[in-house]
Structures are given as C-alpha cells and as structure tokens.
C-alpha cells in the first residue's frame, strides 16, 4: 500500500485539482565518489557518457560521499554540481553524514538524503516475532532489486530502449534500433540492431538472443560490430559475455 493523502486548502479550486502528495520511490543512480578530484571525476564520467549517451542525458543523479577518504582533500560540492550540469546530468542531492557537506548541499540547493534506508514497514506477523538473539552487525545495505524491463512490441529502427536492470525483448529488434541495459539482455525475436549489456560497467552481464544478426553487441563497453562477428554464429541462438576482457560469442 502506498501512502496517499490529499492536501486540503480553504481556497476555492477543489483540492483534488491542485495537487496530491503521493508516496513513492524513484530510482536515481548514485555517483559514489572515492576521491574529491573533480577533473578526474569528470574525465571518467565523460568516458562513461560516451558509452551510453542516452542513459546519461538529463539523468538525475545523487552524489554519494560516504566512500570519500576521511583524511582526503575536501570536495567542492558546488563546483562538482556545476560540472555535472555542464555534462548534461541533473544532480538532485547528496548522501553524506558529514554536517559540513550537508550544509554545502543546502547552499548548492541540493537535497540531503538521509542515511537510513526506508525499509518497507514490517508486516504485523514479522513485527510480533521477538528477536531470537542479539542483533548481528548490520550487513552492507543491499541495493534495492531493480525490476526487469519487458518489451513486447518490435523495437523499430531509430528507437532506443534502456533498462536499469535486465532487459527482455519478446519481439524483433530492427536494424537501426538500440537496446541497452545495466544488466543482462535477452532477445527472443531476431536481434538485428545494437545490443549493449552492462552499460554501467557490469562485466558479468550477458546478452542472450535467439537469432543473432546484430549490427553491434557490447558487454561493459567491449564490443563487436557485425563485420567482426564470426559467420558461424550468425543467425544462431547465442550468448555474448566477457571472459578476461575478451568478448565471447558462443552458441547456446
């Protein structure tokens, strides 16, 4: 159940026509920084943007400062936010427990996202069970599971589809179309366009397809164009994956 409340005012337009506040969660990628060197951050970012320009265009991003070395140079948050904007991203907030950064965020009109993860409220049955033993040290919070995106319609020439998790296409992907995913890609129609798995750098992601006629296949930035695909795998059911930085295309 998502919380849902209407806000009432004494003014005349019916409140339901003004706005509604709805609980909800959006999936915003986080830029987790390991150093505060802005030129280095931007240089790497630009490289990533080139690999998946569509994914990054106007994409909101949260700047995660938790992994910054405590004794390192402090980060100039305002400058980083500006540089992100200049590269087509939309920084929406930061994640940090540091009061200094939280203040800087406020001044840069960035939201501060609390560190506590909003877990779904426990169901009554769970709530009643008494803790059996002392709470163990809390494991690293797991990232929320990203739902798989399923496409049932043909992906046409000129269309681009991006999935933050896995992508399953139950129809053909035309020449001139582009499908991308952070995770794995499955195509059950003919794959004639471009398919890029692991566009955020996940080298373990794979492409599976029933009929490989692709213009390009790529896993985590390692790609092959049609011309360099071995004729023995053309028009076959195959999988594409990375092994020691080499792109393997192999019969299923």
């Amino acid at each position, binding site marked *: 159940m998502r919380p849902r409340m209407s806000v009432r005012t004494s003014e005349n337009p019916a409140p339901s026509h003004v706005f509604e506040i709805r609980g909800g969660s959006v999936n915003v990628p986080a830029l987790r920084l390991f150093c505060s060197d802005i030129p280095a951050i931007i240089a790497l970012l630009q490289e990533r943007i080139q690999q998946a320009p569509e994914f990054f265009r106007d994409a909101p991003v949260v700047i995660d400062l938790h992994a910054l070395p405590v004794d390192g140079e402090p980060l100039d948050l305002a400058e980083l936010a500006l540089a992100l904007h200049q590269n087509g991203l939309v920084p929406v907030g930061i994640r940090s427990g540091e009061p200094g950064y939280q203040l800087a965020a406020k001044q840069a009109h960035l939201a501060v996202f609390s560190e506590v993860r909003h877990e779904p409220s426990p169901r009554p049955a769970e709530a009643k069970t008494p803790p059996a033993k002392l709470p163990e040290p809390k494991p690293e919070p797991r990232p929320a599971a990203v739902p798989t995106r399923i496409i049932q319609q*043909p992906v046409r020439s000129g269309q681009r589809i991006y999935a933050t998790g896995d992508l399953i296409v139950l129809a053909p992907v*035309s020449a*001139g179309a582009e499908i991308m995913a952070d995770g794995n890609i499955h195509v059950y129609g*003919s794959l004639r366009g471009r398919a890029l798995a692991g566009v955020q750098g996940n080298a373990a992601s794979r492409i599976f397809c029933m009929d490989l006629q692709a213009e390009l296949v790529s896993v985590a930035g390692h790609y092959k164009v049609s011309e360099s695909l071995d004729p023995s795998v053309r028009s076959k059911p195959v999988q594409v994956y990375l092994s020691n930085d080499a792109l393997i295309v192999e019969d299923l």
Partner: protein
Amino acid sequence: MARIIVVTSGKGGGGKTTTSAAISMGLALQGKRTAVIDFDVGLRNLDLIMGCERRVVYDFVNVINGEANLNQALIKDKRCDNLFVLPASQTRDKDSLTQEGVGKVLENLSKDFDYVVCDSPAGIERGATLAMYYADDAVVVTNPEVSSVRDSDRMLGILASKSRRAEQGEEPIKEYLLLTRYSPQRVKLGEMLSVDDVQEILSLHLLGVIPESKAVLNASNSGTPVILDDKSDAGQAYGDVVRRYLGETVPHRFLEEEKKGLFGRLFGG
C-alpha cells in the same frame, strides 16, 4: 466521428499517393463518406492522380489559415458523390502546417465524414509527422527492397512514439503493411525481397500486396485512381485491400508469377 487513416512510408516514390487515391476512392465506392487530404505542401500531386487539378481554388493551408472554409476548399469527385479531395498548397512552405491547425481541420472533417485519408509526404520531417499525428490507422506503404523496409521500420517507431494516441497513452495506432510495386519475377531472381522476407523483418499485419503494374502509370496519366481500372491487376489488388480493411476476409493475390493460360499450358514449352 471519422476514422483517420494515414498513408505513410518514409520513402518517396513508393506509392503513397497512388495508394491514398485508390483507398479513398475504394472506401467511397463502398458507400463511406471519405475525404482525402494531400499533406505534401510544395509538391502537391494527389489532385493530379485524382484528376481534379483543374478545379483547385483553395487548399489545405488556406483552410488552416482561415482564408477559406472547408466547404470552399473541398473538391467533390465527379465519379463518386461520397469522395472529396483537400489539395495541398503548391506555393506555401512546409511550415504553414501547424499541429493545431491540422487538428482543427481534422476535427471538422470528422463530423461529416466516415473516413479521412491523409496522404503523407516523404521523409520524417514536419509534414510527415503531422500527417500521422492524429491517425487512428496507418497504412505503411513499403516496396520490397531493403532500404524501403528500413524506412518503414523507422516510420513505425515514430508512429509508436510521436502520435497523439501515443502521447495521450491511448490505444496505439493500428498499423497495416501494404507491399507495393511487387514483382514476383524479380523476387524469384533474388532482386527483390519476398512478402515473407518483409513480413519477417517488419512483423506487421499484411493488408495487401500491390503488383508492379503498367496500369498505375496509365491511371495517373489519365487522372483516374487505379482502383477504378477493375480489369487491371493493381486495380483488383487495391479493391481487395479496401475490402480487407473493412473487415472482409479476402485471400491475397498476385503473389506468384502469372500462370500461363490454358493455351499456354497446352502448347507452351
């Protein structure tokens, strides 16, 4: 409320205008009140194919600009009372068409007509996107060659994302494949894609196959939609298409090389 049909393809010279003329005449002959609009501002030729080029006073752009009303601009066909042509402007530039203006004209036509057929210009520019924006149905005219199929595929992508129905999250435009200028001989020689090849690439409902035919040129030279030439293969094929569109089950014809007649079969090699 009229149903709005766009005849589109992406590529020029594929047979869109030929098809728009044939389908609109075919629908009118089936008793449907039909209007056909030429969206090809600057390159108008629907009026030529319909044989009404000498009766053009006002055009589509005049109506959009409020310089004429629809009744003044619509040209009534001399052969069929149910059919009206709204010609394109030859003199204005393409920007004269606005989304709002087109929307108003279509809304007005919708009150009086059963079908409005929009003959799209080539390309994926303004004229073409406006012609499809308000469509309920799309007839995607494709020739059996790789580049034409690719263009149609691109057009289908645009139909699926940039139409009014798509933007408002309504039921998507119904898409139909019409394969035109089909030559079984050339398919056999491997010079052209077969119906199956095209179907396989586009995965779309096949509305019909129009053979490559001399009758088309003759018809356009005489300003008669080819569907009126019911002795011709292309005319019959368009007749089938209209009946299929209206829900009849009609087997596909003209997919195979013409068989020799009885005489030919008895005495031919």
